[in-house]
């Protein structure tokens, strides 16, 4: 019989469809896993409500539970229990390595300070960066530019 730990391990192998360097577990979108006999119940919170990756994530979770020989029940929870603070430390490192600046902590982020010096370039580490566009190629990203290394980069929005 499958255990919750095996399910968590399997979910940790599922890449985010749009930022494949991080897994669903790294993103912190899995709120709970419960196993009862062959039934696996997964509580899952979307990142942004309009994110088209949600269906892909749900299908991938169901497939991976089935691959363990169990029956998946994925429950999508539409409350505000997910924020970018749920992205794990490992997830933040992986984002940075892939050239995405991880989100700043909610507590440290006053949205009016978007042009301030709390945003760090993922390539050279400089905080001498500026906002290019609040909006980017997906709902979760903004576009910034590093004045030090002259490199544009994507910033995970803090929500």
């Amino acid at each position: 019989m499958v255990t919750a730990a095996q399910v968590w391990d399997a979910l940790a192998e599922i890449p985010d469809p749009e930022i494949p360097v991080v897994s669903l577990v790294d993103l912190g979108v899995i709120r709970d896993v419960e196993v009862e006999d062959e039934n696996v119940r997964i509580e899952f919170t979307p990142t942004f409500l309009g994110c088209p990756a949600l269906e892909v994530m749900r299908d991938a979770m169901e497939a991976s539970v089935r691959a363990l020989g169990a029956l998946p029940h994925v429950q999508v929870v539409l409350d505000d229990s997910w924020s970018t603070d749920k992205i794990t430390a490992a997830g933040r490192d992986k984002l940075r390595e892939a050239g995405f600046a991880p989100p700043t902590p909610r507590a440290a982020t006053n949205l009016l300070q978007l042009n301030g010096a709390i945003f760090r370039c993922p390539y050279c580490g400089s905080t001498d960066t500026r906002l290019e566009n609040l909006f980017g190629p997906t709902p979760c990203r903004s576009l910034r530019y590093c004045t030090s290394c002259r490199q544009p980069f994507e910033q995970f929005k803090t929500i």
Partner: protein
Amino acid sequence: MSAPALLELADDELILGWRDSEWTGIAPSLEEDVAFSSIAQNEIGHARALYELAARELGTTADELAFDRDPSEYRSAPLVEQRRLEWAHTIARHYLYETADEIRLAALKQADDADVAGLAAKMDREEQYHRLHARMWNERLRDEPRYQEALRELWPLALGVLAPEQRAELAGRVGFEPVDAVERDRQSEELRELWEEMTMVRRSVPGATW
């Protein structure tokens, strides 16, 4: 929260998302093209989540509520229905709508219904970025006569987004005097045209999903 009240909000977000997406590819700058496309995606995501809540109560599905109703059944505010491919009016609507939506969401976050309150809180996190964008543009255009005229023209429609008891607060925030609101019961020709386009696939192939 009752299904009709959820549908008002869901219809606003769906129709406005659709209108915002009309800038995709043709906005005055690449940044605004990306911004309005991204905002549209968020609004339609909010609409979907709200339709799902309403659908649970009504025993139907989000897609059926979004696309299978008669145009006369939509409860959207006339402000969001207008087709405004003109920048001053687009920004005036964006600013007025986001300011009104902030008041509406603040009330919903206090709702007794935990599903509604939780969803409103999640939507509000995303809407912070829309507000920031709208305020930035409002600051930039505020002394332009064309923009001021657009704000004045849309003001009675903006009041119609909110329940009567919330309108005084909107007037205070925007700095306009309260006037007679254009209410949701007024069906616009523009909504009917949009409905023709928006529901074309579902009407051609009933139950289609994509």
